[in-house]
């Protein structure tokens, strides 16, 4: 197999197929998604530390800045633009109700982490919720309203 500095990938994002797209080998998945106009996935550090870029890849929450687009060949991706099922609608309503966001920059990643919390079906205490979101940086809210929204979502959905 010859080595190139670009590869062709095919993947599905929010149900939409991307067929045989050429990407630079070094481009990370977050940049790829953003280059396709899916700008809801945000970059805060490109180091995996802030959580702003968290998306769902093949059913799991991952840091899209720490995955190469090349590695996403054959994958099924869901970004914040694709969180439109009944569960996530309830979650978003609770985020709105509790003002669990201010500037909105951390929200896509925070929602992704919340999605995984809800999917685990575990009933978590406030401390446990704080532990689960401890990898998502928010500078605006101080986290309390986010914990409130997630707590209510867990109680409502699970």
């Amino acid at each position: 197999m010859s080595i190139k500095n670009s590869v062709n990938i095919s993947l599905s994002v929010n149900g939409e197929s991307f067929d045989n797209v050429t990407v630079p080998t070094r481009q990370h998945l977050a940049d790829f998604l953003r280059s396709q106009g899916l700008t809801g996935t945000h970059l805060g550090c490109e180091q995996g530390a802030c959580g702003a870029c968290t998306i769902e890849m093949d059913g799991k929450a991952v840091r899209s800045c720490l995955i190469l687009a090349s590695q996403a060949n054959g994958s099924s991706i869901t970004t914040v633009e694709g969180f439109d099922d009944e569960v996530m609608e309830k979650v978003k309503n609770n985020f709105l109700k509790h003002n669990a966001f201010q500037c909105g920059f951390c929200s896509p990643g925070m929602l992704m982490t919340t999605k995984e919390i809800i999917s685990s079906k575990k009933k978590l205490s406030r401390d446990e919720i704080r532990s689960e979101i401890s990898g998502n940086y928010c500078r605006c809210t101080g986290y309390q309203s986010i914990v409130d929204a997630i707590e209510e979502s867990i109680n409502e959905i699970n």
Partner: protein
Amino acid sequence: MDDMKVNQNPKLGSIDRPNSYIGRSLPRENAKKHLDGGGQFVDDLVLPRMLHVAFLRSPFAHADIKSINVDEAKKSSGVFDVYTAKEIDEFCKPWVGTLGHLGEMRSPEQTPLAKKTARWQGEPIAVVIANNRAQAEDALELIEVDWEEKDAQVDMETALDENAVIIHPELGNNLFWTRTVNQGDVVKAFEESHEVVETTLDFARHTGVTLESRGIVADWNKAETKMTIYHNGQAPHMMQHIIAKHLDVNEGLVRIVSRDVGGSFGIKVHVYPDEMAVAAISKKLGRPIKFIADRLESFTTDIHARCHKISGKLGVDKEGKILAMEINDLSGIGPFSMYPRTSAIETNQVLNLSGAPYIIPNYKAVGTVVFQNKTPMCQYRAVGHPIAVAITEALIDKAATKIGINLDEIRKINFIPDNAYPNKCPSGVPLEDLSHQASMDKLLGMMNIKEIEKQKEDDLAKGVLTGYGVIAMCEVTNPSPLFYGVGGAHISSQDGASIRLEGSGAIHLSSSITEQGQGTEAIMKQIAADQLGVSMDTVRVTLGDTDATPYGGGTWASRGAGIGGEAVLKAARTLKNNILDIAAAIMQTNKDTLDIENNVVIRKNGEEGISLQKLAETVYYRGHEIPKGTNPELLATASFLIEGIPFVFTNSAMGCHVSIDQDTGIVKINKFWAVEDCGTQINPKLVEEQIKGGVVQGIGGALFEECVYDDQGNMQNATMADYLVPMAYEMPDIIVDHVTTNSGRSIIGAKGAGEAGTGGAPAVIMNAINNALGKVGSEVTSQPITPEKILKSLNKI
């Protein structure tokens, strides 16, 4: 979360009206887009023929640039061109970060790119313009710089010594600014004091770490000679003037657009050399140019703040009444004062605000600000307050301990009484409409100190160290022209609102205040809908576009609600009045018999009225049906500014309870309480969230955040993993309550609320920790209060 409070402000009308929205915790429907990934941040913008830039930055704190060779870099794949100061200076004039109203202030001219000498690690010296950021960064590696490293001045305490490294030889020394405040006679007062307590505190540099980094897209349209700048800044009109002035563009043809901003906290209200370079490049090339600071360069180029060492002295009489307070503050900024607000303001606020809640007849404050070969420093949320409040409250706790009275008691003895306004700070700054007594009483009610004290004894018996603190503070909000404009800055203190009823019945509102997530758009809507008598979803808002909004100052120093909100209120009332004039003419009745409710002009006697939509249709499409001489006006504009005083202050009382693990040095904040008096709260939930978010940011400064430098001026922890920002697990739940003393300066009576949390938290946490450590005879005096510092104070290491 519909939170109807007791009528906060009778001037605003009854709370029983159907469209009573002021004072209600309505959710921000306009912001829901953020939960769908629909935010429009600067990096989301793509324009045709847009190019990207990356900056070569000095790796040294202080070094001469003997030569720069960009030949290889220019040949790199995807590169359009590479510039140094030579090309940029042709298109951008230098600036100086000084103002005329604070006494002598010296800072040299600054250019976008360093010319012959780099004076801080991170200072840009060359810029690559390429098809994308990755290719631009590739080319950076090919730029050859012949550096001659120099000694760096990185210790503010030696900056004025004889053998200090003089950063700007033409200035003769490293002094940027100094000021002395002298009220009464402190020397005599200390002599007469029964007890005198002293302390010296130091505060580490730290920085904002906005999750969305700084960003700009500059788009010079040669044909229209128009510069459009998409910018995540807080003050678009200020930027409009600065771009026009330094890039030699007609100010009326500069458009600044600030859409969604991913957090700012003051970081994005300053003028940055790299952003000015981007505008210059666009002007030169006639193409859109994008620059987004990455996280690494954010740490070394976003403004830093809070690097202070302050000594304080407090003299009290036998009963604990304060007779005198003296402070001496040293601060080390960068090699340049930031433009246009100057790097003196933080220290100035320390001098102005220390002791602010209290009657202190004799007060002396000396502030010294020196240059350093480190990242420039300037205003960041709660500017100066953390230091002013910490030194004041630490001294008061010490005095209380010495005299043997309770922490809350000593404060109550010394508060400016709630009924004694207007009054003055110890420094002489005017104060009005504050409630330290009521707020402290409320706080004490929430905290149950007796229980805490008892618990403390029980804990100590088990070897667990716990402590608590209570503090009081004043917060600067709603500034007048006496803050910046007086000194020559083109920073508007007056803000405007423009409101119109459209043919569809919709209301459009535009304001010169901007949004960075605090809820500006939501509260403007609430005020407009409330005062007009329309439903919330009738109103749409335009912010952050100098082409489309009134002229004004933007959002900073917590001025959005109090100043911008008042303008909206006045404009809405004018529009309502105009509508009722037209309706009275159409309905052939007296204006006094009419009102507006739920988008309908109603008759107070219950008879049929006319919808706003029908009224608007008549005005716009069938004007001939309206009685001659009515002159219908469905557009209203109003402005507002604060006059006669420099600021409108809020006050807060805060308390916290901490535990200290004596083995690990880790501090746990068990509980945090805040009572805030910000006058009328337009949306109580949003106010509460400002307090909570602010407190957590303050916890960052108190326990976690610092920019660590080695002795060569290299920042050691400039990554997201190494610089410790508060994350969810370590943060407490915060309990917030309020006292309401409306500002008499406006109808709306709202003051700012954005910064108190950050201003007070460091002080109350430090006091709580020292309250705990006091039991074993130790204390800490340096922030951030790290586990290592705790262990050292306990003599464990």
